[in-house]
């Protein structure tokens, strides 16, 4: 019986190869978009975490400002600005932060001493804008952004997540609707077969089975396409980021599994609902 259901489903699929592929593509695009959103989010996560830690303004001092001279600089700033909270960032921590984004840095650090790291201090001030005056200090090499970059980044990331998420959901809903309409049309195209099957006592599951097989097979193709598209986007972005010396994003295994599961389950669910609503030619009351 199952072999017959699969065989009938395969027959329908073969006779509608073009439409099936279009449906698979319609499912694959939003799933690929959703998958790539996850990849980007995971890639950006360390930066957001770093910036969250670095909510205070970062001030990079000249490499020769070390030891007692560094302590003297800190004391002087404390005296001049009693409300500032100044903290010296240990060279190991700075190196670790840099290595998160520039992987080759770790290898450099293996060969050279941490002493080459310029001293970094973090200053928490009630009004970060007042720190811009430090740029004129002869011991200061650079002053980091005075606005809360972490918050900005998080907000931008949240917006990107929403836009891509909502777009993916809308496209997925459209693809689900497309699957339902397609099943509806196929059901009417095969109305004579359904009637005969019912008249000869075919179980309801076997009547609906071939249509579910069709959408499940289409879903598998869509899952493969979605996974492939996500990988292509990831490889492309890796190339761009590699030029900048940044770490490459990766596609987690569970994104691929989720894409396949959604690609198969969504059309099956919509097809099952359509069949339940419209394929009930059983008894006229």
């Amino acid at each position: 019986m199952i072999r017959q259901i699969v065989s009938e489903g395969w027959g329908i699929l073969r006779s509608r190869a073009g439409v099936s592929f279009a449906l698979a593509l319609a499912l694959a695009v939003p799933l690929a978009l959703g998958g790539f959103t996850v990849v980007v989010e995971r890639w950006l996560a360390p930066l957001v975490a770093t910036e969250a830690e670095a909510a205070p303004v970062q001030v990079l001092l000249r490499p020769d400002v070390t030891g007692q001279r560094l302590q003297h600089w800190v004391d002087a700033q404390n005296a001049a600005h009693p409300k500032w909270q100044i903290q010296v960032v240990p060279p190991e921590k700075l190196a670790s932060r840099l290595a998160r984004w520039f992987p080759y840095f770790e290898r450099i650090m293996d060969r050279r001493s941490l002493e080459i790291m310029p001293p970094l201090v973090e200053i928490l001030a009630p009004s970060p804008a007042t720190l811009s005056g430090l740029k004129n200090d002869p011991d200061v090499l650079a002053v980091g952004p005075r606005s809360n970059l972490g918050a900005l980044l998080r907000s931008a990331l949240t917006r990107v997540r929403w836009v891509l998420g909502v777009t993916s959901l809308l496209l997925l809903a459209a693809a689900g609707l497309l699957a339902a309409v397609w099943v509806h049309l196929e059901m009417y195209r095969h109305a004579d077969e359904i009637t005969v099957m019912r008249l000869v006592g075919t179980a309801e599951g076997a009547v609906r089975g071939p249509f579910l097989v069709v959408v499940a097979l289409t879903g598998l193709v869509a899952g493969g396409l979605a996974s492939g598209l996500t990988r292509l986007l990831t490889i492309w972005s890796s190339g761009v980021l590699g030029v900048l010396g940044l770490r490459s994003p990766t596609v987690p295994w569970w994104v691929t599994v989720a894409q396949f599961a959604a690609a198969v389950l969504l059309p099956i669910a919509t097809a099952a609902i359509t069949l339940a609503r419209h394929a009930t030619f059983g008894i006229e009351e």
Partner: protein
Amino acid sequence: MIRLREVHKSFDHRNVLRGVTVAVDPGEFVFLTGPSGVGKSTFLKLLYAAERPTSGEVWVNDMRVDTLPLHELPHLRRTMGVIFQDFKLLKRKSVLENITFVLRFHGLPPREAQRRAYLTLKRLGLQHRQSAFPDALSGGEQQRVAIARALAYQPRLILADEPTGNLDAELAAELMSLLCDINYQGATVLVATHDHALLESIPARTLVLQRGAIAYDGIWPP
């Protein structure tokens, strides 16, 4: 085999059947006749549960059909074969596939389904047309394929709704002879027809429907 008790059926306040009570025993050959639109097809639909009666009891093959739950419907329909005037053959499938298609959904393995389909076609003299598609067959051949499909899973009851409606007199006689043969081999046969010539060709029990009730029950002609 078939029992109807005080069966009423109405569509939009139009009473088609009014208190029909009738019984058909196993192995009987019965004609159901009456003018067009009198409710012959409705009578048959009640038996294969395509419709439910407005009131009354319908029993077929020891199953109460009027209250049969939907999931029990396939069990009922597997005990009967239904033959239609318009044959209801699948145009995209060959003659053999039209029969194996049904047998496969009845759970038979592919080889057994093919073997049984071939034997049924042979019984009806259609084995040489097994690869042909329905559109390439004559009306008589198409009706024989429909009968082969109904017989393939060896039902105890055959319901035929105007089976000779699309056939000429010669083919109609041939078909009736086939149905008699099926009945002779043990199946109960109920044929709905308005063709009087057909009724007179075979002396069999005849139910005459008039104004929604059984007006005559006996051998035809009276």
